[in-house]
């Protein structure tokens, strides 16, 4: 483990342990070591001893915000559906948050999914997370038996050989173009601030596709989603997807077919992306969890770009600002309604 990661890991353990011991939080949501290389496991510590299992490394790709509503509920005293809410403040939950995750928490607060006063946030300036798919491609798809993380490099063990790769070469696309690596809200700072970053080619992946003809774009989209197996890992990993019944699961009426027919799969992906417009913080969880390696977040990145260009808004940066697609101003652009 690199020095940075081990410092952050120790600080998380110490702080989470204290919070749990003092009773300030009832549960702490972070990551534990995985059972295979390049994997971590979302982990909920409920005792100071369990906090010792928490880790921090470059493979924490799941957005913990997605678990928050469930974990918050799990620490509430149990009550029947018609019982009144308990008196006094409800127990709190601790959680780790990088830039994008904290912005998701802001969105959740604005959408009344979690409340600020029930969270104790350990803010971490993100150095970016690594894409296991990119690492896999670096070693030609061979079985990786171990991986060691240095400050700026990864040592990959494969067939008894060691391959050294530069960390930044295998960073996730969303992390490479991230402009807000520091958390926007937190109660305790863990490790050093990552600082604001200025990225020249923030929308490079989107620009490439925008430059195509409509037919080429459709071809690109169809090709990308042809691998989809409709497992819904993307949807379920997304903290923005919290509808009690998703439109794809609805059967009365049935909006979309259940199998992998290209029309049905297209509808699922287009609607999934649109539901995230103005709310997505490009945390990359959807793309990281996709077992088929579909580059899903290019769709949401396009919507991020549109919302920024049209409404000058970026999701989750400001707790007070209105949600861009849930408000209006007289000078909102309307080219998409009125031609000319």
């Amino acid at each position, binding site marked *: 483990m690199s020095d940075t990661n081990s410092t952050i890991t120790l600080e998380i353990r110490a702080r989470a342990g204290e919070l749990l011991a003092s009773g300030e939080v009832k549960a702490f949501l972070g990551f534990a070591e995985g059972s295979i290389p390049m994997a971590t496991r979302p982990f909920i510590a409920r005792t100071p001893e369990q906090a010792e299992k928490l880790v921090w490394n470059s493979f924490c790709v799941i957005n913990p915000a997605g678990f928050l509503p469930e974990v918050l509920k799990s620490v509430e005293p149990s009550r029947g559906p018609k019982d009144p809410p308990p008196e006094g403040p409800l127990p709190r939950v601790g959680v780790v948050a990088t830039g994008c995750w904290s912005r998701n928490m802001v969105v959740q607060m604005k959408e009344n999914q979690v409340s600020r006063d029930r969270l104790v946030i350990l803010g971490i300036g993100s150095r970016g997370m690594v894409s296991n798919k990119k690492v896999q491609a670096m070693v030609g798809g061979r079985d990786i038996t171990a991986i060691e993380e240095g400050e700026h490099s990864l040592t990959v063990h494969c067939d008894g050989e060691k391959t050294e790769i530069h960390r930044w070469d295998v960073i996730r696309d969303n992390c490479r173009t991230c402009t807000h690596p520091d958390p926007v809200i937190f109660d305790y700072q863990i490790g050093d601030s990552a600082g604001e970053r200025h990225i020249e080619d923030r929308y490079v992946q989107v620009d490439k596709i925008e430059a195509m003809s409509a037919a080429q774009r459709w071809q690109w989209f169809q090709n990308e989603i042809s691998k989809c197996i409709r497992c819904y890992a993307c949807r379920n990993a997304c903290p923005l997807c919290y509808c009690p019944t998703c439109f794809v699961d609805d059967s009365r009426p049935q909006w979309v077919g259940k199998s*992998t027919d290209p029309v049905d799969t297209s509808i699922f992906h287009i609607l999934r992306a649109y539901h995230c417009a103005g709310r997505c913080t490009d945390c990359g969880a959807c793309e990281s*969890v996709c077992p088929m390696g579909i580059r899903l977040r290019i769709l949401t990145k396009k919507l991020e770009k549109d919302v920024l260009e049209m409404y000058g808004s970026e999701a989750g940066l400001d707790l007070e600002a209105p949600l861009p697609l849930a408000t209006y101003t007289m000078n909102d652009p309307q080219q998409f309604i009125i031609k000319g």
Partner: protein
Amino acid sequence: MKILKLEKSDLDKWLAEWMKSSPVYAPVQSGFGSFYDWARLEQGRMPELLPGVPKSSIKTFLFPQPETLEEFSADPADPSAFILKAPKTAEQLTIIAGVRPCDARSVSLNALPYAKDPYYSNRLRNTALVGFTCETQCSTCFCTRTGGLPTGTEGLDIAITRMDNTFLAEILTQKGELLAEAGRTGTDAGGDALSRLEQSRKNSGSPVSSADDPAPILREKDLMALYQAPFWQEIAEPCLNCGACTFLCPTCYCFDIQDEVIRDRGRRIRYWDSCMFPLFTLHASGHNPRGLKLQRVRNRFMHKLKYFPERFGPISCVGCGRCIRECPVNIDIREVYTDLLAI
């Protein structure tokens, strides 16, 4: 059983000959090896085998997603409207090459619950499996802990093993014999081929017996003791309830059925379902007997490791490791084995 000796060029010839009359599928690589999955072979596109298994399991061929069971007219003016008719299917052999022993074994395991399923049986009859035994066990492989072997031949029609610089092909079934004949090359490997094969497997250090098969032990365990075990909460807690594990698993065979109507044509399809989805058990009344994540996660493992062996004998897992490799939150079935066996 006949064993043929083949050079690399003979293998290419076999595939080329088969392709003339049948669709042939095999694993190929793309994205610099980061994406390794089945594709239809054409002249010039040959298998590119990596250690371990391709992304999707072999069930894609025998239990396709979706499968049209019946077709019907939805035109009210048609006198035969809404009368179900079997779709026209050609009785054609599909050849799947480069199958790993774990995937091949899954085909036989799924045939147990599907023994009376006409669709599965029909596809099974029209599919030939040509396997490649494993020389390497990947970090997520665990076939020997499920009753299988890296050199196992169960479910295969032909099993090919590399020996030195040539290949030995065990012709295991009648279908295999037809394929070997159609390949029009290969020489008899001699009477002692099988013992040489076994000796070479022993020498390579590859496991020769599946001593760790948990099925007999799990069958004897008290069902309720496993069901009420304290560890389920911890296992289920990180689960996203997505279907990545079940859809990539070769031995997950649950499905749902729907009628789809587009304009005046309709079809009855069956498509993969997953016990990880809350909808899987939702009753029309609104009641859901497995409404909680813990209940769904527990069911997935109990089905594979307790209910299935009680009913059919073996456990419903072949140790391919796909669920471990692709689980977004690293739920590792090997840990569940260990937990269950410790009860």
